[in-house]
């Protein structure tokens, strides 16, 4: 069996195409999606509601406006005007300073700023809030050094309007993870198994004392390892290149990913069992797995916006459930209690595909 796994690695490392798919693809995808969505912000219209009007809030407002990123569109007088200001549609952000801002900062060492954003363009909203917080943080550090001798903190509280969950921001990372795992696990295994069938080496292996289960395990083990490495690479890229937050448990994320990898591998075996050639396996995984994963899993197009029949179809896509799980862990930081249902569905699908693929594989032996 070790000999088998080692042999499989030889195939992978000596085939440039495999290597490109395995390692070039994830990196390219993350970077592509990441940078395609990332937009620089410049001259964003904002409004300020200054409830304190002291020297510090004035100075901070100046900092914001003079940063080059923001244009002060309006000075609001009260909370009632916020809604109307957004509805006019020309501002993207309202910055609110609380009462007695400077006083609180001196006395208690902290004061609150609230940022309210129009999140209907979620990515932009996120960028704006990040830039604003950045400027505020720099300013509070300056304050600490120059004016105060004690540590002070300006607490920013961000509120997204219209789209509080920021539906498409960072969606690409869970989506890319799903696609890559699907690609590496399902497509690569199905191709590599059919290749052995085509070349005729499968016969020799079947005649050997290896049991079918050993053959399957030997075949998929390298891909489990490689998928896992890919997963880590994507997560690292997401964290260090795109500052993607990771609120939930990493271990839970990895466990759920293993479940998904196993599911995809079973699918790969199933595909290889029903297809006769490498090309056929490739086509099946492309059109049967990859395209639906991209189009119907909610990765690019929100499922809620799909026509009803397509929504039904999306329910049978394992990737849909996996993306929900990933989003929950990565973006909301919630635990198992919130997505046990999705996990269960994924688990049942996995079991179903394993049973199916083992059956089909045995059938081929006859």
């Amino acid at each position, binding site marked *: 069996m070790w000999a*088998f796994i080692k*042999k499989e690695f030889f*195939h992978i490392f000596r085939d440039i195409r495999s290597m490109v798919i395995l390692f070039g693809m994830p990196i390219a995808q993350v970077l592509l999606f990441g940078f395609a969505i990332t937009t620089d912000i410049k001259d964003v219209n904002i409004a300020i509601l200054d409830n304190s009007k002291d020297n510090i809030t004035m100075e901070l407002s100046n900092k914001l406006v003079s940063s080059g990123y923001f244009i002060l569109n309006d000075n609001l007088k009260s909370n009632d005007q916020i809604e109307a200001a957004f509805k006019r549609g020309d501002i993207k952000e309202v910055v609110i300073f609380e009462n007695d801002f400077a006083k609180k900062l001196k006395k208690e060492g902290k004061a609150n700023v609230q940022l309210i954003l129009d999140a209907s363009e979620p990515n932009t909203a996120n960028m704006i809030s990040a830039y604003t917080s950045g400027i505020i943080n720099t300013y509070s550090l300056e304050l600490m050094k120059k004016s105060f001798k004690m540590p002070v903190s300006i607490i920013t509280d961000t509120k997204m309007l219209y789209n509080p969950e920021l539906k498409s921001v960072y969606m690409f990372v869970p989506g890319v993870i799903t696609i890559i795992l699907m690609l590496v696990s399902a497509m690569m295994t199905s191709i590599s198994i059919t290749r052995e069938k085509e*070349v005729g080496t499968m*016969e020799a292996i*079947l*005649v050997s*004392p*290896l049991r079918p289960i050993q053959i399957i395990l030997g075949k998929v083990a390298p891909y489990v390892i490689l998928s896992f490495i890919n997963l880590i690479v994507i997560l690292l890229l997401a964290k260090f290149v795109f500052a993607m937050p990771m609120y939930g448990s990493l271990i839970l994320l990895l466990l759920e990913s293993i479940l998904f990898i196993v599911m995809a591998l079973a699918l790969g075996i199933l595909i290889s069992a029903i297809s006769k050639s490498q090309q056929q396996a490739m086509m099946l995984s492309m059109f049967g797995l990859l395209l639906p994963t991209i189009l119907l899993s909610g990765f690019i197009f929100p499922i809620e916006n799909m026509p009803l029949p397509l929504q039904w179809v999306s329910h049978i896509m394992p990737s849909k459930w996996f993306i929900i799980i990933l989003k929950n862990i990565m973006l909301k930081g919630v635990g198992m209690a919130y997505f046990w249902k999705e996990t269960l569905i994924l688990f049942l699908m996995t079991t179903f595909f394993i049973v199916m693929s083992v059956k089909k594989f045995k059938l081929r032996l006859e």
Partner: protein
Amino acid sequence: MEENNIIVVEGLYKKFGSFVANDNLNFTVRKGEIFGFLGANGAGKTTAIKILSGLSKPTSGKVIVAGCNVKHEANKLKKNIGYMSQRFSLYDDMTVKENFRFYGGIYGLSAKEIKLKTDHLLRKLDMVENKDVLLKKLPLGWKQKLAFSVAVMHDPAVVFLDEPTGGVDPITRRQFWEMIYEKSLEGTTIFVTTHYMDEAEYCERVSIMAEGKIEALDTPANLKKQFKVETMDDVFVKIARKES
């Protein structure tokens, strides 16, 4: 006499639905014999080989290979047989040595045994200096000899050769048969299918299948006498004619 028979087939039937692929096959093969298993395409050869090598189960009948009943001792059987197909079953993207290591590994040989065997077999083939060459860089004839060496690496009692000489030139084929002879002298039973009738002459005994049945089984010399012809080619044609 009985224990000298390494393959015993009695009343073997294999049916796929209503189609009878193997219709009451009866034959034995002696230890160390070179047994030719001939027949036109679709005559049921492949089905029979699959059953003999434990890949497929007979519908009924008794099949004993290397002391194992193929029906319920398939796993024990598989350790005692070797297999080489027309397509050689070697990996093009691995070196000669790696191929040996892989097949040695799946037959459960230890690293030391694999090394010894590899050295021994490569020296015999005069290919020691090529052991780190990727297989795809080697000529077809070499690959074929390697495939045979790999198939007998674990010293099986029986080696199944399924059209082993397809697509090679006559000289290479000749050399290949010398290897087969050598192995058979060491006591390994060779069970070979082929489409080349000159090769049938090399076999000690030959069976010819047609439409799922064994139509003739004897030494090449006796078969020629029986059908009153000069060559094995004519024997084959006569049997095939009779069918149609």
